[in-house]
């Protein structure tokens, strides 16, 4: 459940979309693009790296999602040529998602198969002495250039596959934990500003998670939120009508809380 694992999941925009869409309870209609964006930004920010291609790719996916969402809000009209385009685009996107899911499964199978293969060891013994004379000239056709190429390939610095995350503080952001924490603090003080609830949490992802937790508590009726002006302070007031356990029982799983499937 470490954050690096999530980064693997979010590497590609198609992966990201697939991940979001295959999460059982997520419906494009219900998911807020802003939430997805926050999640994505949080993932990118925590990696301390910006991969331009995948970010641009994300914008494309986000734009398609917006378009699809917009289409769902409007009454469907088969006569509308633009709706036809949209359907085609949707089919295309769906096809790509299915393809992406298929290769991901195939990759998982390859892993299993390779690990089974590790139990087989091939014979690598050198040629028996008596046959050495019969063997063709080992160096036939080999030039000093071939040797140089082979040496360069073998001695070249090997880039590491894994993103080095040793410099990062491990971030353990769970919506469930945030709910429990908010409930404890709010239950005691009855009313607090969102800022106050976040004061000890500097990481961006944790602020996002706290906000999600507030929304969950609001949905459950455990608290009320007030905001007097746009961008003003958000105040949370504890209603005392719902217990934390009830809220937690209903909480949707968020990506950060989930084990990665593959």
């Amino acid at each position, binding site marked *: 459940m470490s954050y690096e694992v999530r980064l693997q999941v979010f590497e590609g925009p198609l992966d990201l979309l697939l991940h979001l869409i295959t999460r059982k309870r*997520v419906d494009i209609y219900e998911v807020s693009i802003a939430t997805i964006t926050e999640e994505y930004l949080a993932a990118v920010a925590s990696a301390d790296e910006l991969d331009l291609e995948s970010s641009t790719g994300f914008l494309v996916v986000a734009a398609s999602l917006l378009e699809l969402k917009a289409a769902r809000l409007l009454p469907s009209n088969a006569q509308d040529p633009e709706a036809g385009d949209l359907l085609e685009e949707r089919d295309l996107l769906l096809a790509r998602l*299915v393809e*992406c899911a298929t290769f991901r499964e195939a*990759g998982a199978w390859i892993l299993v198969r390779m690990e089974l*293969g*590790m139990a087989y*060891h*091939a014979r690598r013994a050198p*040629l028996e002495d008596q046959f050495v004379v019969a063997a063709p000239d080992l160096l036939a056709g080999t030039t000093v250039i071939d040797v140089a190429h082979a040496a360069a390939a073998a001695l070249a610095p090997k880039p590491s596959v894994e993103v080095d995350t040793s410099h990062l503080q491990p971030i353990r952001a769970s919506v469930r934990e945030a709910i429990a924490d908010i409930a404890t603090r709010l239950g005691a003080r009855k009313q607090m500003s969102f800022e106050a609830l976040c004061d000890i949490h500097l990481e961006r992802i944790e602020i996002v998670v706290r906000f999600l937790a507030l929304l969950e508590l609001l949905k459950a009726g455990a608290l009320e939120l007030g905001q007097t002006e746009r961008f003003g302070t958000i105040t949370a007031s504890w209603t005392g009508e719902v217990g934390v356990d009830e809220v937690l029982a209903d909480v949707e799983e968020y990506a950060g809380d989930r084990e990665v499937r593959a």
Partner: protein
Amino acid sequence: MTDDRKVIEAILLLASEPVPASAIGEVLERPRAEVTGALQELADGYTAEERGFVLREVAGGWRLYTSPDCAPWLERFVSRGGAGRLTTAALEVLAIVAYRGPLARSEIAEIRGVDSDGVVKTLLQRELLKIGPADQGPPMLFSVSEEFLERMGLRSTADLPSLSDFMPDAESVEDMEAKLSPRG
């Protein structure tokens, strides 16, 4: 036929890479099909007799391997370095190239929806991908290597299970479709 079997066994012991049935056929002056039959018999025999070695057809040829049952005892005789676990991304690229290869870098990126150069490079270094087939112009194309096929225990990419085995089931595709669809 007994003699042929004997020579085939000797050849397999001597070889340091998978031996194609045709190469054995040339040495024995026997048709390839006959040799393949004898190889298959040998392989079945080793398994039936619970030998410490098995004969497998991989990467276009036949090769002797130690029986996987013995692996725990063999640890101190072998070190297979660089066997670090592959990332999900690397496995996905391997799958794409195994099924769709030879492919250019850009084609791999297109299927995955994300730039994959780093992953391709790592897989080349671990000799799981290779550049080729040889007689190509730009763009550079990538295929899975013989090393990959050997480790997977496959004769060739034609032996890969059908890709449809890995497709999400109809229900999840419908589900995905529903989530992408405008409301009726």
